[in-house]
Structures are given as C-alpha cells and as structure tokens.
C-alpha cells in the first residue's frame, strides 16, 4: 500500500473583496511507496508548499482525494506516524530547543523518561548541544533548521515530510541533512521532500515529481526520467614536455572545441567516438590524459526543460504567491 496517495488534487484560493480565484494546484496525482526518498520538485510558486499543506491537514483541498499513511489528510492517528518540517520554520521563539522538543514529545504522548531520552538523542543528532537553554529567538537560520529537523523526528515517524530542508544551511549543514535523510531511508523510513536545490535532489531521490504552475509534469525514478544519452565528452589532457608546442598545435587541429584551463588542455566534443580517437592520439604522441568526462542530461536540464515547456506567454497571469488566476 502507498504511504502517500494523491488523486486529482485541486486547490483554488479565493482572495480579496473581488473574490478573485487563484488555482494553486490543478488536478495532480501521484503516490509514494514505503522506503523511498521522494523528491517533489518545481520552481517557486509551482504549488509544492500548497500540496504539502494539504497533506499535513493545514488547508483543505477544493477537490480530489488525499491519503496519508492510509488515512485522510489531517487524521490524528496518521499524524502520530509522520514528522513534518515546514518551509522557513517558525517555532515558539521564547522556548529553548529542549523545551520545544519536550512539548512535541508531550503531544506525542511520551512519558517524562522517554521524552528526556529522545530530546537528548535528537539534540545531539542535529548538533545543537552547544545551544543549551538559549531561546530559539537567538538561533541562526541554520540552527533553526536543525531544530526543525529534530522536532520532526520526535515521534520516530514512518513518514518524514520536509519542505525545503536544506534552506539556510551552509555546505556542511546540507551534507549533514543529506546524511540524515539517507540514514532515515536506511532505517526503513519514507522521506517526502520538496526542494528547488536540484543538486540535493539528484543525490538523494529514488523518485521525483515535477510540478509546474500547479500541474504535475513528470513522475518516476530519476534514472528513467533522465536521458542516458551522452550529450558531450570533455577530455582534459597535457602535452608531453618535449615538442609540447608542436604536439599541442597538431592535436588542436582535430574536430571539437579546444580551450586551455588551469587543469590542462580541454577538448569538448559531441561525438564519443571522436573523443576515444583523441585520447589514443594524445597517448601515442607522448601526452597524458588527466580526465575523460561524459556529459549526460542533468536533473537541472530536465527541470529547466519541464519548466520551459509550460512557459507559454498566452497563459493566464500568475500572482505573487504562485498559482494561476482564473475568472
């Protein structure tokens, strides 16, 4: 059974005195299987956070069906089995991190001993021991994000929903969050996260969905969505110490783009066979190969192509909160 199931989900907001309607989510369907890391990707204002808010029972759908851990969204028993990190988390800033986690532990029904143990473990796990009893209002954005991750894990959830979990973190913090997400999967948990940082998504996700302007564009395993075809090959090489100029001149006459970088000479070609011949020629002339790097379609390229495919100038205008205005 799917951990998360969304069928023909729609959300239309009505704003202002003019009752202007904005379609934020327009009939999306997808499912998330147990034990997966599922990336929900899309540009700003695409409808990611609106979808997550519906899944978390924060807003109600206009139409469609949502099932979270086999129950309707907002079901208390289902919420006990999930952990959620909101985007740009705002917590009770007069509390310290242990107080906040203790409060969440109480809501989860943990007794005093279990709460104390769990709070200690999580504070250590996210690296907030040094914060002590400082109130959250004195925390940096990165520290708040760590605290947010800790509170999402208090109930030892089966499903962890993370809205932009890397937001505000430095490279070290991002790596720690990536490690945490992978660790959660290794422990059999399901992770559903939305992000527009594609490097993180490509490193972590088993499956992804692209949402653009409230519509789902593609869903599937990353390996299937990305084209396996090699677009181009970069060959980085160095000329031999003897007759360097002559060898360099001779090899640069071969087809492809040539340039000089700090690593050495670089040939970029769209023909993999030509690259292979070039490598052979370099070696035959006494040069050395530094690296050979084939370029395939990246997640970023796929993301851009999905977003651009929908960028029709005749489409209805969008407002600042994303979504599409309708009459």
């Amino acid at each position, binding site marked *: 059974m799917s951990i998360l199931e969304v069928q023909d989900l729609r959300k239309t907001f009505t704003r202002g005195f003019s009752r202007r309607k904005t379609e934020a989510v327009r009939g999306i369907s997808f499912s998330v299987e147990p034990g997966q890391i599922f990336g929900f990707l899309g540009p700003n204002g695409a409808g990611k956070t609106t979808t997550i808010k519906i899944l978390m029972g924060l807003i109600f759908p206009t139409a469609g069906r949502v099932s979270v851990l086999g129950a309707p969204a907002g079901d*208390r028993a289902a919420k006990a089995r999930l952990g959620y990190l909101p985007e740009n988390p705002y917590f009770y800033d007069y509390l310290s991190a242990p107080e906040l986690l203790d409060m969440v532990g109480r809501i989860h029904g943990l007794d005093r001993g279990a709460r104390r143990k769990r709070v200690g473990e999580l504070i250590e796990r996210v690296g907030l021991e040094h914060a002590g009893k400082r109130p959250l209002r004195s925390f940096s954005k990165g520290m708040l994000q760590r605290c947010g991750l800790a509170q999402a894990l208090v109930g030892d959830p089966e499903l962890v929903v993370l809205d932009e979990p890397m937001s505000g973190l430095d490279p070290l913090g991002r790596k720690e969050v990536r490690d945490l997400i992978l660790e959660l999967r290794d422990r059999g948990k399901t992770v559903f996260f939305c992000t527009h940082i594609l490097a993180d998504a490509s490193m972590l996700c088993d499956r992804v969905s692209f949402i653009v302007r409230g519509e789902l564009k593609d869903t599937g395993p990353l390996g299937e969505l990305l084209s396996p075809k090699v677009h181009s090959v970069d060959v980085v090489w160095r000329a031999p110490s003897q007759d360097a100029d002559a060898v360099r001149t001779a090899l640069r006459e071969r087809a492809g783009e040539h340039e000089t970088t700090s690593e050495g000479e670089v040939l970029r070609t769209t023909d993999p066979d030509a690259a292979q011949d070039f490598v052979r020629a370099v070696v035959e002339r006494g040069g050395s190969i530094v690296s050979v790097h084939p370029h395939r379609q990246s997640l970023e390229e796929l993301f851009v192509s999905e977003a651009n495919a929908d960028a029709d100038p005749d489409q209805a205008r969008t407002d600042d909160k994303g979504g599409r205005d309708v009459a």
Partner: protein
Amino acid sequence: MSPFGQSLARVWAVALNTFREAMRNRVLAVLLLFAVGLMAFSLVLGELSLHEEVRVIKDLGLAGISFVGILIALFLGVNLLSKELDRKTVFFVIPKPLHRWEFLLGKFVGLAVTLALLTGLMAVVLAIFVVSNGGTHGVAMLRAEILVLLELLLLTTVAMLFSSFSSPYLSAMFTGALWIIGRNTPELSAFAGGKLDGSPLGTLLGVIASAVPDFHLFYISGGNLEGNIVSIHEGFVSWAYVAQAAGYAGLYGAACLLLAVALFARRDFT
C-alpha cells in the same frame, strides 16, 4: 493511558506552552507592576480620607485587579490565535498528532491558568496592603476576586471566538465593545423597559441586553441587586450568587468556545 487521558495530556501540552509564553511576556510584567502601583497609590488616597483607609484600599485595589485583568485578558485573548497565524507557528503545531479542538482548548486552559495565577497574585498583594493598614481581607473580598476571575475567563472566551476568524485589531475592538455593553446591561435593560418599552428601539435594546455576555454580573460591588445596594464592605453577595455567576460564565464561555472550535476546524492556514 485511556484515550481521554491522552487527549487531556495533549491539551495540557498546549496549555503549558501558552502559560510559558504568557509568563515570558514582558508586557504582562509591566501590567502587573501597574496593578501593584495602583494599589500602592490607594495607600496615598487612603491617607487623604477620614479614617477610611481600608475602604479606599479595598475599592481601588479591587478596581485595579479588575482593570488590569481585563487588559491582560483582552491583550492575551485576542493575540492567542492570531499570533500563531502571524508567526506561522500554526504550521508547526497543527500537523502534530492533536485535534484542532485540542489545540484551541489547550490555548484557553493555558490562558485560564495564567489569569488565575495573576489574579491570585494581585489578590495576595492587595490582602497584604489591607492587613498592613489594620483591615481584614475577609470572605467578601474573596468572593469579589473570584467574580473578577470569572469575568476575565468569560472575556477570554469571547476574545478567542473573535480571534478565530478575524484580525487581532478587529477582535480587540469587538471584544472591547462587547465588554463595555456587557458591563452596562442593567442600564440597557432599563432603557428597553422604560420610555422605549414597546418601540422597535426598545425591543432591539432588549435583545442586545439579553444576547451580550452579562459582565455586570461579575462586578457587582457598589451596584444594585434586586433593590439592595451591594458592597464588599457590607451586604455583599452570597456564595450561591457566585456559583450562579460561575454557571453563567461556564455556559456562555462554553458556547463561545464551541463556536470558535467550529470556525477553527474548517479554517485554511495559508
């Protein structure tokens, strides 16, 4: 633990957090100091009276407790839910395993505990002032202070009802207006049943007087009750009256909370 016990534990978790928030709020400390200052000022006024120091201290002290209590209940009550929305903490707490009504009830319980503690604290300070001036605090004062607390709790439920669907400014305006009208229900009823009796305006005033929360019920000292002057100095209301007022506050407050729960249950947190 039984499902009921678990539900209580969740309500208490929210209540405890609300209590902590209130206790760490500096505005509250300032208001509390203001109340104590008002009581201290009553000592000066008492000196100006002709051997009526204790009477002045009691009257002014009780008025101070009521006034500061109303300000605190209004300030905390209207901010109780709107602050959660403004600061987006609602995005963190609603996805936790608790019902929306448990969250709302927890907020109310937390504020009720805060108000009870603050009223108790101010009452103790007043008692110290009274005793140090040779007077006795007495059971009448205790009844009056309990009535003040009941009024504050009822006002909080009204504030919560308004803040469950409107902005803090509008909630404060609506709640404040209702409190002023509610404190003057005898005058409204007198108008409605006097010269305006039978007229559309008289009927309207009569409906308003019976529909708005009767806050006058809780601040009775110096007023007229069934033809008798009621005063904390002599001839104050009985425990039966306090129980009746508590029943009224309980029923009216529960109705406000139920309505707030119904509105909050279907609200989108965008």
